[in-house]
Each structure stands twice: as structure tokens, then as C-alpha cells.
């Protein structure tokens, strides 16, 4: 297929996922803070910006909670905001309308139009939950429609690959933001899980609610309950979200799925992208969660994100950027 269209589908997959996951993260942060006895609300929001790598975009605007939330949800100047992600997803799908079902186009277009028709600023003040759940559900509808209407050809594979890589990254960030916020909110006197090398045990009640919120934001709370019963150990939560092979939003699940798509796309040829991704999958699959805390969780999550970014780069080199050998013409064409 045409490289440009493959790239459009890859990014459509990424942007829809980004919109959904940003909604999930803003939602979980917003609602845990409501229940938090601690007053360091601004700091918590700032940390969310940090794990999303958006502090450079945010710049030196005043870091008050309301402003940051608006920035994350509806600021068109922020390429990672929910509305910007939806717009870009729509633009990408619009460019491949000939390749996808009309239902898929309608699904993303409906979401775009719905967001455009709503007073998002007002809703953030009154009913943020309704807004976030609309975004979440609509994004899932987009994927549902794609999954039920697209033939399993290369176009589908590129879209799925983009979505899975994005979700893997975002789940890392979701874990990271809670982990970091716990550190901050707990304060130096109640260092539960702050010291690398120290496996945290037995959370107090506040942490308990925080981790429930994390699980819920990954739609994983019920599944966690069935697996671990009543126990709420941060190590278990991290293990579940990071290393569980059967949980659709776990990092290992996403990267394993991405590996399947990539191998099909490469027709089992060894490529730089498959090597990079395969190694990352292996490092997760054969990992013991206790090692992560020894290594330092934050550093590990960062490393996974960097690897995923390199995989995406390698995918672009492998499939999207073909130049003829003659450099003269390559320059003329660029």
C-alpha cells in the first residue's frame, strides 16, 4: 500500500488512543485529588504534565490546576490535548477515507463534531466525569467499528500497531504518574515506595484509594480483584499493569500484540523494528516485578517508553520513508 496512507493509519491509531488515554489520566488525577486530604493539587497536576512530556509545551504559564486541566483537555495549541488528538485522528482518517469503512469515518467524525458542539470549558467546571467518559467511550467505539469493519490487511495492521505502541507508552505514564504522585503526596515522613531497592508493603487507606483509581483508569479494577482478591499491594498493581500477559491495557499485552502486527507487516523478515521490539517484549516477559523496584521503577518505565519511541522510528524508516538511491533527486523531492 502507499506509504503515506500507511502512515496516516498508523497515526490515526495513535491519536485516537492518545485522546482516550489522556482522558483516562486526567480523569483519574482529577478524581483522586477530590478525595485527597493533601493540598498539593497543583503539584499533582504538574507531575501529570511531566510524565506526559508536556511541560515544554506548557511553558511558563501559571501552574494552577484549572489552567492545566484546560491545557490537557481543550487547548488546541497543545498537540497532546484531547481535542487536538481527536482533530488529528480525524484528519488522518479523512486522508484514508478511501481505504476505511464509511462507518469508521462517521465514528471519528461524530466524536469530532460532538466535541466541537459542546462547551467544554463549562463542562470541565460542572461535569468533567461526563466529558471524560464520553471521550473514552467514543474512542472505544472508533476502535470497535474499525475492528468490526476493516479487513485484516496491512492498513489494519498499521492502525493496530500505532494504537498498541501508543497504549503501551501511555500505560507506562499512567503507572509513573501515580507512582510519582504517591511519592509526593506521602511526604518524606511516610516514605512508602520511594526508596529504590525497597519493596513497598501494606499501603495505608489513602494509597489504597489511589491505586484503585489507577486500576479503574486502565479499566482493570475488576480484573485485578479477581486475580488478587482483596489485597491492594502497589507491587501487585504495577505487576498487573506492566507485566500481565492477558490484560488488554498492560504494557506487555500491548507490546506482544504490536509484535504480532509488526511480524505480519515484515512478513517475518528480520528488521531493525522487530529486533528492537522483540528485545523489549522479552525484557518485560521474563521480568520479576521485585527487580523493577530494585532497579527503580521510574527509570524502568522511562526506558520502556524510550524503546517504544525507537521502535516507532524504526517502523517509519522501514515503511514510510523510501527515497531513491540518487541523492540529487531525494533532495529535490524533500
Amino acid at each position: 500500500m502507499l506509504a503515506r496512507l500507511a502512515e496516516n493509519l498508523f497515526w490515526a491509531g495513535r491519536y485516537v488512543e492518545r485522546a482516550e488515554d489522556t482522558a483516562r489520566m486526567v480523569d483519574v488525577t482529577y478524581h483522586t485529588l477530590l478525595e485527597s486530604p493533601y493540598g498539593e493539587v497543583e503539584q499533582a497536576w504538574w507531575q501529570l504534565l511531566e510524565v506526559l512530556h508536556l511541560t515544554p509545551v506548557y511553558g511558563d504559564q501559571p501552574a494552577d490546576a484549572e489552567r492545566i486541566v484546560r491545557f490537557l483537555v481543550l487547548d488546541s495549541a497543545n498537540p497532546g490535548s484531547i481535542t487536538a488528538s481527536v482533530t488529528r485522528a480525524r484528519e488522518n482518517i479523512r486522508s484514508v477515507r478511501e481505504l476505511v469503512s464509511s462507518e469508521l469515518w462517521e465514528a471519528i467524525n461524530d466524536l469530532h463534531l460532538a466535541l466541537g458542539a459542546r462547551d467544554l470549558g463549562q463542562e470541565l467546571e460542572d461535569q468533567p466525569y461526563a466529558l471524560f467518559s464520553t471521550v473514552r467511550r467514543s474512542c472505544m467505539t472508533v476502535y470497535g467499528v474499525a475492528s468490526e469493519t476493516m479487513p485484516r490487511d496491512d492498513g489494519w495492521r498499521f492502525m493496530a500497531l500505532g494504537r498498541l505502541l501508543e497504549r503501551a507508552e501511555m500505560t507506562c505514564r499512567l503507572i509513573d504518574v501515580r507512582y510519582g504522585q504517591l511519592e509526593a503526596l506521602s511526604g518524606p515522613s511516610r516514605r512508602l515506595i520511594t526508596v529504590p531497592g525497597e519493596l513497598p508493603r501494606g499501603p495505608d487507606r489513602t494509597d489504597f484509594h489511589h491505586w484503585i483509581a489507577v486500576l479503574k483508569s486502565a479499566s482493570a479494577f475488576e480484573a485485578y480483584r479477581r486475580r488478587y482478591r482483596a489485597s491492594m499491594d502497589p507491587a501487585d498493581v504495577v505487576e498487573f499493569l506492566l507485566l500481565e500477559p492477558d490484560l488488554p491495557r498492560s504494557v506487555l499485552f500491548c507490546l506482544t500484540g504490536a509484535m504480532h502486527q509488526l511480524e505480519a507487516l515484515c512478513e517475518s523478515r528480520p528488521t531493525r523494528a522487530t529486533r528492537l521490539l522483540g528485545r523489549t517484549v522479552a525484557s518485560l516477559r521474563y521480568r520479576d516485578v521485585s527487580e523493577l523496584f530494585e532497579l527503580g521503577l521510574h527509570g524502568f518505565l522511562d526506558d520502556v517508553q524510550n524503546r517504544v519511541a525507537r521502535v516507532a522510528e524504526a517502523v517509519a524508516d522501514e515503511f514510510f520513508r523510501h527515497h531513491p538511491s540518487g541523492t540529487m533527486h531525494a533532495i529535490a523531492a524533500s
Partner: protein
Amino acid sequence: MRAPLTNDGRGRETPGLGRLPHAGGIRRTGYRLAVPDLLRVYDRGEHFDEVFDDRGEVRPHYRELVARITRLSPDDLERRERIRDGIFRAQGITFTVYGDDDGIERTFPMDLLPRIIPADEWDVIERGVVQRVTALNRFLEDLYVGEQAAVHDGVVPRWLIQTAEGYARAAFGIPVTHAARCLVSGIDLVRDRDGTYRVLEDNLRNPSGISYVLENRAAMTRVLPVVFASQRVRPVDHYGPMLLRALREVAPPAAGDQPTAVVLTPGVYNAAYFEHAFLARQMGIELVEGRDLVVDEHVVSMRTTRGLERVDVIYRRIDDDFLDPVVFRADSALGVPGLLSAARAGNVTIANAVGNGVADDKAVYAFVPDLIRFYLGEDPILPNVETYLLWEPEQRAAVLERLDQLVVKPVGASGGYGLVIGPRASDAELAEVRAAIGADPRAYIAQEVVALSRHPTLIGDRIEGRHVDLRPFAIAGESVEVVPGGLTRVALRRGSLVVNSSQGGGSKDTWVLDGGGDGTARVGALPYGSRHTEA
């Protein structure tokens, strides 16, 4: 069936679309009259009417249609209009109007009453279009890779060719297989007061509109299936395969027997993007943008996920100016650098060919009948509209004398832009065009006003006469073929003579009847699709 005769072409004061009462946001108020009554009050006016003859009788080839339509109740008619609207909206069949702020994408409205052309009339049109396109292809081939015989022999003045906007020196020496330079042409025809078909203009660069022909037909067979089936109408849906065959026929000799063809579009923001995508889908070939193509060693390839794939034929829907920034506008981001060098090397065929604009320049148009005689040794089957060349002092003087009775057109424009219709123009507009002609007489032509034929059309809750034209599409590969019918455009505004979609036009499904006689057949009496051989 009689329509009252009047001698007032502008008709009585019946409300137009704009003055219809609006009820609760509903666009129309519903038909108050049944079809027979709508036709009884129909004002045929002083123009050639496609349906009614001079005595007000329904012409033979429309009798079956009128009989069928007459059975529809007002509710029925409205319901079918709603079905039609649903079909077009759902398919997103839209076009873009430039310089219009509100609602960039609009639907191109199809009138429920089709235009019907009997077989014998079509035979003339078909032969006339084939003849004209054949001569134009010969002329262009001779101009760019031949001896320029028509210029040497003084059939067309050399300076006129050299000053034509579409004349492209970059096209010299670029070969086109079978000389099919106008691979797709749209020849705009109008009918004058006595019903003679005349060529109004040739569109030889990127004629658009064929997608509406196909979509109109698809919609018509769903909205009025029984009415449609009662006639033996020649099909149009083989256009895609026809076009693909022609594209493959014009591939460079080196391309082998499975040449790869693509459609090249400026992108989703182009006014005709819908049609580009539609054609690519109909042919099952890739729809590419300039950035998808790359030229290396004079070979064109497209960037695919599996690497570079060679391209042999490009059906481009990008204007010459934007096609290749190395040769034309350097600031074009739409084109492909090096494309023309690849074509010149014989590694790719560009369709339509570069430089065709010289032949559809509106001043060169005036010479096409002579070109037909020169290259084919035949008399033109389809006459031109009487045209005056303004650089000729006597013609210019005569034109300026009666500017308020003529149409003035800029020679390089299309789409109805810049047109001045004398009888409708204000004194200020006339003064302006007079000054413009004085400043650059080569830039304009003047023509007699053709009182375009009219066709009954559903307007508001009425049936009113509206001016129509006809754009048949010809495809040239090894030979020239014309798609039966073509695009009938309707000037929806009362009295308007401008039918372009960009100027408030609509369209009609256009039926070419099969066989001779009135071409009708009862459903059931003859199996649908069988040959009709009666005289």
C-alpha cells in the same frame, strides 16, 4: 398534454426558491399541485424546450416519462426527493465553492426529471464529438511533436498559438502513445432556439463531472426505478473500465503488458477530490498525491510500504502549472519534481497531456472547425457558436457597438468565471469590459447569446423551465469513444444562462435511449436490457 404558450420568456411571477414560505425549518412546503396540474401551469417560454414542442405537445421521446411521472402524487414526489437527498448526503457527494465562506462543501443537486436524448440525436452528438476530439488530438500532436502543419499553412495564426496561456514549450518532444493527448475530454454543448446542438467550449485539460453522471444514474435507478425501467436507457457504468483501458493503452511501449496506472490528485482540499477518489475506486487503482511519487533516473515510482513501485501512466488531475516544480511553478508543493523529464524520456505517460490548454483557449476555439477540415478533410458535424475575434479591428468595432447584446468571455478562464452577459450586465459592467477589451483584445472573445434550451425542472413546489447544457465525455486511447449521455447541467436560478456548479448549477440524469423510434419499452413486455431493433 399542453403547456400554455406565452411570448414572455421570463414567465409570470411565480415564487422562486428564495421566496418560498419556510415552516419550522422544513425546506419546502410540499407540492400543492399534482404533476398533471404542475405541467398544465408550466410556462414553456420562448426558448427551445426539451420536453414540449412549439405547439406545446410532449415530444415523442418524453411521452413515456411524462406518462409515468404524471402518476406520482404530490406526496410521492416529495418522498422521492427525500430519498434522493438521503442518498447524496450519505455518500458525501459534494463539491467545493472557492471564495465562499459558509459551508465549504455543498451537494450538487440532481433534479428528479431526467433529460432524455433520442438515439438519432445522440448519433449526431456522438459522431460530432468523436470527430472534434480526433481533430484536436491531431492538432496537439502536430503542435508538440510534429511539423505544426496547421500553423505553417495559416489555418491558425502563429502568434495566437504562441500567446495562448495553455501553450507549454515544456511539452515539446514529449511523446504520447496513440497521440491520445486529450485522453478525457468534456465537450460542452448547448442547443439554440431551433434545437441545433452547438459546441460552446472544449474542456481538454482536466474536465470534471463524470462522477456526477455515474452517481446521478445510480441515484435515479433507486429513486424512480419503475420510471427508469420503462425506458431503454444506455448504461454509463462502464466508464471506470473504459478509462482504465485507455490509460493502459497509452502506456509507454517499454511498460510491458501490465502497466501500472495511478490517479494523481492535489489532495483532499481540492474541489474535485471526491471525483478523484471516486475514479480511483472505480478503476481499482491507487489515488496518489505528488509526495507519493518520486522520480529517479527519469523513472517515476510511488512510495509504498514495500518500497518503490514503478508507475507507467498517470491520470493527473493537477493543472499543468503545478505538475512539476522543476519546469513550471517552483513553489508548487502538489507536483512531482522531474515528472516531465520522465515523460520526455518515454518512461511514463501523463494524461491528459501537458500543454492541452492551447487547444481549449477560447480564441483558438474559434478555429476548431477549420482544424477539423484541415486535419480530417471533413465538414464539422457540430457547429460552433458564432464567435468574434476582438483583435480584428472590424470585428472589434462591431462588437463594441452592440456589447449589450453579446457574451464576452476571458479566453483562459473556465467554470463560468469572468463571464459578462451583455443583456444582463449593468452599464458599469459593460464599461468595465469595454475598457478591458481595449487594453488587451487577445484576452477576450465575444459570442452571440445562445438562448440555451430549457428543461422542466422541479423548483420549490413548481415545475419551471430552466436552461440546460450538456457535457458529453469522450475517452481517447487507441480510438475515441463517447460515454452515452454525459452531464446535463441546469441553471437553477430563474433565467440564468450559467450552468456551472460553481455558479449555482444543478444537474440531471441524462438518458440516451437505445435503438430508434421513441425508444420506449414497457416493463415486462421486453426483457430489460435486450436489444431494441425497431426502426
